[in-house]
């Protein structure tokens, strides 16, 4: 019933050697390695490099917010916090992509294949530069020559987006997610989306320190401090909140809501990689253009 998926110990050894030299500046073997991804930002970045993982954790939810759909036949590895080690072994990966967030399962992962892990999201630090650097670094680990090219393409894409939104860059954007009719989450300067905003030449209205990409749940009334901003609502709004917002006196009295300066974006992974940032940028540019 289950086949023996073991193959190529030499390639695995090569990869281990590449990983051993701290992130691996050395190009690996010519054959493309089999990749298993626990962290989604890593999975997205590998996909952008043209090397989609054969297995991704929490594939069901990943599909809902991924910037590009995973390849058909991709294996689901179960929860990111507790990946299924048996399913992982069956995919016989040459390298496992993880992040510091899953460091507690790393010992178990390491028994199966070499692990490439990075600190991607640290409280109080902008994740965007690190995620940009991840592109060439990961390319080196995966033996892909595309790293610098993909990175340049990203820069070009953001520059193009900046041109598209230049006409509306005068107003700051307030990026939020709706919880219920009385509470929101705000994306601050240590969030992925803040980095995308900057890359597009826009400004984030929220300058208060956030705890980790999401601010703590913020009462709706705090929005009154931003009468001049644009409201950008990311993701779906729960149905009961939607209903309460339509009639809510406070929400409907906020100047941006009164003036119709409110833009809705689909679900995007707030802890994703540069591809998620780029998708956010495109969606935001579309939303701003259609409103203009």
């Amino acid at each position: 019933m289950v086949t023996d998926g073991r193959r190529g110990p030499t390639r695995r050894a090569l990869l281990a050697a590449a990983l051993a030299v701290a992130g691996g500046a050395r190009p690996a073997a010519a054959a493309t390695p089999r990749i298993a991804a626990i962290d989604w930002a890593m999975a997205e970045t590998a996909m952008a490099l043209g090397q989609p993982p054969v297995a991704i954790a929490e594939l069901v939810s990943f599909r809902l917010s991924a910037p590009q759909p995973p390849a058909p036949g991709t294996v689901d590895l179960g929860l990111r916090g507790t990946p299924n080690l048996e399913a992982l072994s069956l995919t016989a990966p040459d390298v496992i992509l993880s992040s510091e967030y899953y460091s507690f399962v790393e010992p178990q992962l390491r028994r199966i294949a070499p692990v490439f892990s990075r600190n991607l999201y640290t409280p109080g630090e902008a994740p965007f530069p690190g995620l940009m650097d991840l592109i060439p670094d990961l390319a080196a680990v995966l033996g892909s020559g595309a790293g610098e090219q993909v990175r340049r393409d990203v820069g070009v894409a953001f520059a193009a987006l900046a041109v598209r939104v230049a006409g509306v860059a005068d107003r700051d954007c307030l990026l939020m997610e709706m919880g219920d009719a009385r509470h929101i989450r705000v994306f601050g300067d240590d969030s992925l989306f803040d980095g995308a905003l900057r890359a597009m030449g826009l400004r984030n209205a929220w300058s208060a320190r956030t705890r980790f990409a999401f601010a703590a749940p913020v009462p709706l009334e705090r929005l009154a401090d931003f009468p001049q901003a644009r409201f950008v609502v990311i993701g779906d709004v729960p149905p009961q909140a939607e209903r309460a917002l339509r009639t809510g006196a406070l929400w409907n009295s906020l100047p941006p809501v009164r003036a119709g300066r409110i833009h809705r974006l689909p679900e995007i992974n707030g802890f994703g990689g540069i591809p998620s940032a780029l998708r956010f940028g495109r969606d935001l540019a579309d939303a701003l253009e259609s409103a203009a």
Partner: protein
Amino acid sequence: MTRLLLPLAAGLAAVLWLAAALAVLPPGAWPARPWRAETMEVPQILLAYGLMPRGVVALLAGALLGLAGGLMQAVLRNPLADPTTLGTASGAQLAVVAATILAPGWLVAGSLPVALAGAGAATALVMALGARRDFAPVTVTIAGMLVGLMASAIATALTLSQGHYLLSLVMWNGGALTQQDWTGVWRLGAVLLPGLVLAALLARPLMVMSLGSGAARGLGLRLVPLRFGVLVLAVFLSAMVSAEVGLVGFVGLAAPAIVQGLGARTLRRRLMLAAVAGAVVLSLADGVLLALAALGGPDLPTGALTGLIGGPLLIWLLPRMRSRVPTTAEEGDRHAPRAPHPGRILWGLAALTVALALLTLIGGRGPEGWGFIAPALRETFLPLRATAILAAASAGALLAGSGAILQRLTANPMAAPEVLGVTGGASLGYAATVFLIEAPGTPALAFGTAAGGALALAALSVHALRRDMAPARILLAGLAIGAFAGAVLTAIMASGDRRSWVILGWLAGSAGRVTPEGALALAALALGLLGALLAAARWLEILPLGTEVSRALGLRLSRIRPGLVLLAGLATGVATMLVGPVSFVGLMAPHLARSLGLVRAAPFVIASWLIGALLMVIAAFGARTAGYPYDLPLGLFATLIGTPWLFVLLLKRSRS
């Protein structure tokens, strides 16, 4: 002095609210009636549609909870009853969380029907359990808090499975009073007024009922409809609050306790005063948080603050209730008939455990479906599975062993490690480690969790062991610690930090994270516990017979009891690291052992130990395969397979 307490607190709450209001707008700029939202400035709207309704909602919700608590305490004659301790609030929580995730459409028209159904179901379950013991206060409270723990555990696992609506769930779980218009005020007010009238009408028959069932029947009172009606009213009032603002714990416990000190003569007066006291308590708590937020502090949900008062309150109430409650009602079941050959049962259990462990080791589920391991994969799979199975079985044995100790020690069939508060303390230790150390490893987490468990144990010892360690006292003190830990965890969740996900994941428990060394260490500890249990078999035989008998037989209780509590606490703390704080294996396994007819101490503890391991092996298999490739939470699975059965067992009237 006590008479001034309520007015003083009310005045303080008003001052705090006013301070928050003045921070928004100076009095001159306050909006004049009639308000028209379209023409008002934003700060005016914040005041008229934010702070003002919030202040009123705090009063109304507090009054509703106080009244509900007063009614529950009157009808059950139980000073520890309130919507939190009877599981009512947790039932509503589970229903709303489940609906939010599985059927959000049900909530479009408002959460009340869903919350009411959940609250009613949980309360009915607790009442069904309590009825078997004449609604003995401590037993009912423990049953209620267990049902509450279970409901919260399932709600946690559901929350974990979908982060999509997490923010709204977190706020709701925390009990946030924030308002953005007056609809909440109207809804709560429309329930409070008829609630007060009904309570006033019911007060007199309730007073008669308190004379005793015989006297009440003599006076022509129909007890069952009366009890049922009062409980339905109380559950409805509490569900209304849950639906509107979320979980606000322990106000219903605090309000009648405050009124008790005021010396009100009639029950009607006490009920009305309980409503007033509840309003004052919740307003004060909300005022403190408002003032804190106005000073630039964090915006915490109010329910998280009231949850903190619950634990200390329970401990404070405990010594005051003793005189009023007949202790005979609290005693445990008559034992089941003795098994003629306990040895055979034990060997059978051991063989079954080993057989199942081996079966689940080689059998399982893969991408191709169910089946046995392919020979080529043995090398990779067997170590992985053996580690998880060994760890799970050891944790089960540890929990069951400590459950057996506690049940013997307290002579109470509801005693369990979950009830001891050790799991609660261990959760706090884990949470503290996650927040204090960046990306902590297993050793750091293990140390933090064990330290938390040990601290809880120390707190328990200070309070419960100092006096003669009445069984009821130690159980409720433990539950109080658990409630406190739960409130702190809720506050952490409500802070919206990403690290709260790590804690949430652990709360549900998983065997996938254990290393081989960890599993071996757990197994060694489990064997050590078995040895200790056998060595202590004589004590465990004598202790349930009571303090006097034990002393007469020469047991040095002052040493033996703390020693056994320490043993149970440490075993629980270690197992908790693996399976998370809720599993109920420690409660179930000894029950099963007793129902097999194992009455003598030595067979009883061995059987409990084995059944704990057996249950956990089954749970681990289910958790690994049911949702392949998604590893389900181990503790949750153990809870789900065991608890319904446990409730059936408790519901069965003991044949004596």
